[in-house]
């Protein structure tokens, strides 16, 4: 069936395989929504159960979280630009924007690691209470997703350099762009319901 290749439209949609992979990934993202919402639910239920550890309002800082948010929002934007370049047929533009995206992602990760270490020094660790367990696992799961995304994107950049823009590589890049935007969606909710509400309540 792959022989029936479309002649128009974005490269990634032209083959049946391409369409199916992208559709499958959307469905996977549906599952990811549920995965993260379970973590959010756990966090919400365990909210306030800090036992002897510090309370979030004392540790969360607006500055650093805002910087992290802007880093990730910008990386989502640059990732969108990368796809724009890809659809315009520019391999060089695509790779450039992808690399910028990854740089921003690495910056985000750096801040997150710094933040975690900082909290641990203040006495809030994974083990200290159920609230902090929920916090670290929720934020950490997002962080692990970002890390995997970076590793995955690096592999794709190598493939792009080797093979150029084909239906297969452009499909792969499109899928990771979905993943990256999705992680931004999740971060928006972490930023809002964990950090902002944690600072307010």
């Amino acid at each position, binding site marked *: 069936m792959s022989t029936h290749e479309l002649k128009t439209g974005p490269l990634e949609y032209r083959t049946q395989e391409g369409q199916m992979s992208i559709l499958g990934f959307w469905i*996977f993202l549906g599952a990811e929504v549920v*995965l993260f919402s379970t973590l959010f639910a756990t966090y919400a239920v365990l909210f306030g159960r800090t036992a002897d550890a510090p309370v979030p309002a004392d540790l969360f800082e607006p500055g650093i979280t805002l910087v992290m948010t802007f880093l990730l929002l910008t990386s989502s934007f640059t990732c969108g630009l990368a796809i724009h370049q890809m659809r315009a047929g520019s391999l060089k533009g695509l790779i450039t924007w992808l690399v910028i995206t990854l740089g921003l992602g690495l910056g985000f990760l750096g801040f997150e690691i710094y933040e975690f270490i900082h909290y641990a020094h203040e006495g809030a660790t994974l083990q200290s209470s159920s609230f902090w*367990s929920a916090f670290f696992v929720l934020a950490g799961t997002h962080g692990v997703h970002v890390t995997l995304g970076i590793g995955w994107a690096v592999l794709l950049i190598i493939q792009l350099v080797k093979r150029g823009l084909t239906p297969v590589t452009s499909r792969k890049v499109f899928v990771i762009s979905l993943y990256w935007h999705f992680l931004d969606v999740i971060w928006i909710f972490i930023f809002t319901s964990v950090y902002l509400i944690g600072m307010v309540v």
Partner: protein
Amino acid sequence: MQLDEFFVTGEPLIYGGMVSIVLVTSAIIFLLTYLKRWGWLWREWLTTVDHKKIGIMYILSALAMLFRGGVDALMMRVQLAFPNMNFLNSQHYNEIFTTHGTVMIIFMAMPFLVGLMNIIVPLQIGARDFAFPFVNAVSFWSFFFGAMLFNISFVIGGSPDAGWTSYTPLAGAALSPGPGQNFYLMGLQLAGIGTLATGINLMVTILKMRAPGMKMFDMPIFTWSTLVTSFIIIFAFPILTVALALLTIDRIFGSQFFTLTGEGMPMMWANLFWMWGHPEVYIVILPAFGIFSEIIATFARKQLFGYKAMVWSMILIAGLSFLVWVHHFFTMGAGALVNSVFSVSTMLIAVPTGVKIFNWLATLYKSRIQMTTAMMWSLAFIPSFVIGGVTGVMLGMAAADYQFHNSYFLIAHFHYVLIAGTVFACFAGLVYWYPKMFGHKLNERIGKHSFWWFLIGFHVCFFPQYFVGLDGMPRRVFAILPEWMPLNVISTVGAFGMGVGFVIFVYNIYYSYRYSKREEKGDAWDGRTLEWATPTPVPFYNFATLPEINGRDAFLSMKKNNETTFDEERLEPIHMPSNTGQPIIMMAILAFASFALVFEWIGLAVIGLIGTLIMMGIRSFDYDDGYHVEVDEIKKIERSARGL
């Protein structure tokens, strides 16, 4: 760690288990070597990405698991019928009911149904294979290694013993130290990943790979049930993934989610577990409904009554299944409002289910029922399931549930729905599609023996349990009061009846392999749906050509119009995926990592995880496009298969 801590010691039954594992394994190795079949095994089975072969491997594993779970069940029944014989002590009994429940739900019911879906769904919609054959193989091996990891626990490290629901704080590190509970967590996690991937795979397959002209409301009902099931899988399994991960982190890395220390919240586990657990019940029951619908329509020689109502009721059941989870812990004291809300939502499920029952009965109206074995399983399902269903409604009434909860009334209820629903469907489906899979039917006479043994055994086993439950007998006890004895003895007799039924069923597989007439045509039962349009054995590419489909019961109209799936004019090369060893290797490495995590060997686990990631990287760089089956070869295969 000392060896005697690593291996479970001191139980004669477990030594027996060890010996038989060693014997069976060496027998298999010997046979494979003696018959020089290692290469065949690797090329034809272990590296296959063919949905039909993967489906067969699912079903074989599920039958093995049914045997294991069934032996557990019989051991429990023996203990309860002769509590003074001291057949099992308390600890051993706890381990056995835990593994019985887990194995039956996770490693028997689901893989059996997934196996049938694997084989049948692509054939029913006229597809070449799954949307992602590679992922399908990964799914199977993750299930397989998950099941192996879970099952090895009884000889290495010790079985989990906190019930299949694994409630915290009992299952937490403080109250259940040691690897037993970790086996449960890692085994389910591993299998769960595969199930989620299968759900996505099936959904894309059904949405994107239907035969030309086949609209959604033209799909065979089993395919519909698969689609709805995959929807539930996609939205329910991530909850399990998270719940298991949280408990794993609790146990291995010392977090405080479900602990008694650090202001943890043990009840949150029950909440998360049942948020997955209730939809899970429908994951194993909806495909069963689909199977029965197909079989009843086929052998009633009549189209399904109220097709659209059947589909919509399945969709409604799927939606409601996410809104009722609290009925598993009404007794938690969540308050009158919570209990009332969930009581009503629970009972509402009875409405679409009732609609389905009546539709099946109406399908029988003015039909011509052929009493084949598959049909008998399907017919027996209706009244048996109704008993389970009405008692389910009773359990849903929270105020009454305070008396039913945790009692044998509950046990009787869910065995009535899960055996009469799922297990009957597995047997019915296997009998029905057996000729499509293996090229010969199962013997009808022996099949009916096995049916009657199993059916009567089932009712004798579980019907008394309603009453012993109402007499106050709680579940999961290894010692009972004298007044519960008579009903328990009856139950045990019934359980052995079911055991005999199963043995006859397995014997039938052997007998039919030896003596059954080989199928010459693909259409063994004068079927209605597309899977019967292919020749038997099904060519590895499934369909050479497909006519334009319009309307339901596609094969029925094809037969009317004298169409086949072999139109020589329209032959084109068919693109096929190549076999690959990557899935089994990838999952073996992940299983190794999980095993290391069970014993909390963090270093080894990290190595295993890195290995898995490397395998995924290798896969990413793998641009193997598969190959094409040329027109001449298709012609040759189809002609010989169709005797042209």
